[in-house]
């Protein structure tokens, strides 16, 4: 393993994050605060409890997941797309590094950023509502697995994309709707039965439900299934990455 190279890529990516630190730090704080003002206070005051938890607290896990998924995807996809776009990918391909090392560097950095933002949101949220985390270990595990798997997913998008439009396409048209309809702001049990069934085809439901279970001990679906869902998604991303690695898809003719 060429760890020096992994470290070089990782620190290079993190430096970009640090360069725009104010933006990276303030935007999640601001958007979380807005969610709480709108959902937590304005609307939440008219909603009693959801599954025994105040509405303000109920939306916290969903909010964190929403940001972690989109941040993981956008950081990793941009991270690998940008060298393709400006041509500096030649450097990665001509260096004595293998694809695993490239993935570790980019995905590691993207997952770190997503994790950081997730924790910032958790911190901000705790200023607005009383939060107790029932299963801190599980909470952290879900958070880490989500950061990692969505960063991998973003990396795949970045390799696949051939222009900036395609880079935005999947996050905008697929991921955001799935997250909003994945029970970030409501409990699945609040939906009519027919829509509940539809919802179970949305993979994001399992992630948010599992993550919420780690906070409050209550969930829409059994936590074991949630864990299997996130591990399955991770495995799927790894398989695709492995295939890209073998074929040189869209990076090495």
């Amino acid at each position, binding site marked *: 393993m*060429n*760890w*020096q*190279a992994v*470290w*070089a*890529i990782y620190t*290079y990516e993190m*430096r*970009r994050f640090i*360069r725009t630190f104010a933006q990276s730090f303030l935007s999640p704080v601001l958007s979380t605060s807005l969610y709480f003002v709108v959902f937590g206070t304005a609307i939440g005051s008219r909603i009693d409890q959801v599954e025994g938890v105040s509405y303000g607290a109920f939306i916290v896990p969903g909010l964190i997941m929403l940001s972690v998924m989109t941040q993981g995807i956008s950081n990793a996809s941009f991270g690998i797309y*940008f*060298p393709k776009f*400006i*041509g*500096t990918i*030649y*450097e*990665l*391909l*001509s*260096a*004595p*590094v293998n694809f695993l090392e490239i993935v570790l560097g980019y995905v590691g950095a993207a997952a770190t950023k997503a994790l950081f933002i997730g924790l910032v949101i958790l911190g901000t949220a705790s200023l607005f509502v009383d939060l107790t985390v029932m299963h801190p270990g599980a909470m952290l595990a879900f958070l880490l697995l989500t950061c990692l798997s969505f960063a991998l997913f973003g990396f795949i998008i970045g390799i696949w994309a051939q222009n900036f439009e395609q880079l935005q396409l999947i996050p905008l048209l697929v991921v955001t709707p799935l997250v909003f309809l994945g029970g970030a702001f409501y409990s699945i049990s609040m939906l009519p039965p027919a829509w509940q069934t539809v919802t179970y085809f949305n993979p994001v439901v399992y992630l948010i439900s599992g993550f919420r279970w780690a906070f409050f001990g209550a969930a829409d679906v059994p936590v074991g299934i949630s864990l299997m869902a996130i591990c399955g998604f991770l495995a799927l991303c790894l398989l695709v990455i492995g295939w890209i690695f073998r074929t*040189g898809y869209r990076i*090495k*003719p």
Partner: protein
Amino acid sequence: MPAIVETRGLTKVYEDGTEALKPLDLSIEEGEILALLGPNGAGKTTLISMLCGLVSPSGGQALVGGHDIVASYRQARRMIGLVPQEIALEPFQKVWDSVRFTRGLFGLKRDDAHLEAVLRQLSLWDKRNNRVVELSGGMKRRVLIAKALSHRPRVLFLDEPTAGVDVDLRRDMWEMVEELRRDGVTIILTTHYIEEAEAIADRVGVISKGELLLIEEKDALMVRMGRKTLRIDLRAPVRAVPDGLARYDLELAADGESLSYHYDTMGEGTGITALLQDLAREGLALRDIHTRQSSLEEIFVDLVKGEAQ
């Protein structure tokens, strides 16, 4: 001298069926400067890209420093520095960080002294804290070279190094190539500026349509392929070449004021003595005579044209 780069039947056929490089056997000696000449799209960049790992070979084998470029890609690539044709740099990165990043990719620990020496040699030291976006085009090209030298490569590939570069930088570049050669670095450059090959290369290879037409010592090539031309200016113009001179391969200028005679100094006899005597016998008075050696450029154009026919 042992071969530092060797290819055996190395070939590339792209997915759309384009045969970018026909099976190629090539051996490059350690410490030499090889210039690959050829028109655009001839396959020069494809060859370099395969050796450097940017493109997967479709067949054949290539060794760099005895290491297979596919099976032992790490060992092979550690020996290689690549300066690409297009300027490809992260615009917001500082020069120093950019060069350090490349060194890191090659799995090497920090060596600030070496990087300083490289940047000084390329007149970039004062710019080390500048962002790439603030540099001129020539300076950016220097940064690409600095990156390629950050890990002390034994083989340096320069893909069209002086395309669109001003005269100063071109001179600097040639000097740098000379310095690297003194350190024993093997240099492979592609160019379509033939004067560049003429100025710095030890050997010249000509590639056209994915095929290596020839590879030869530059000096020998110029002697072997080079023809000399004798131009004879006449005192009074003539309408046609006099019949008495028909056995010579003479070209009459459009204005009828001069005759050109091509000859080969490597041949048995040049025929010049007999020609001059015959000119006098035909009663032609001479005003001046010139001789000219054909340049590498003319040799190259002849070769590629010959291939096209």
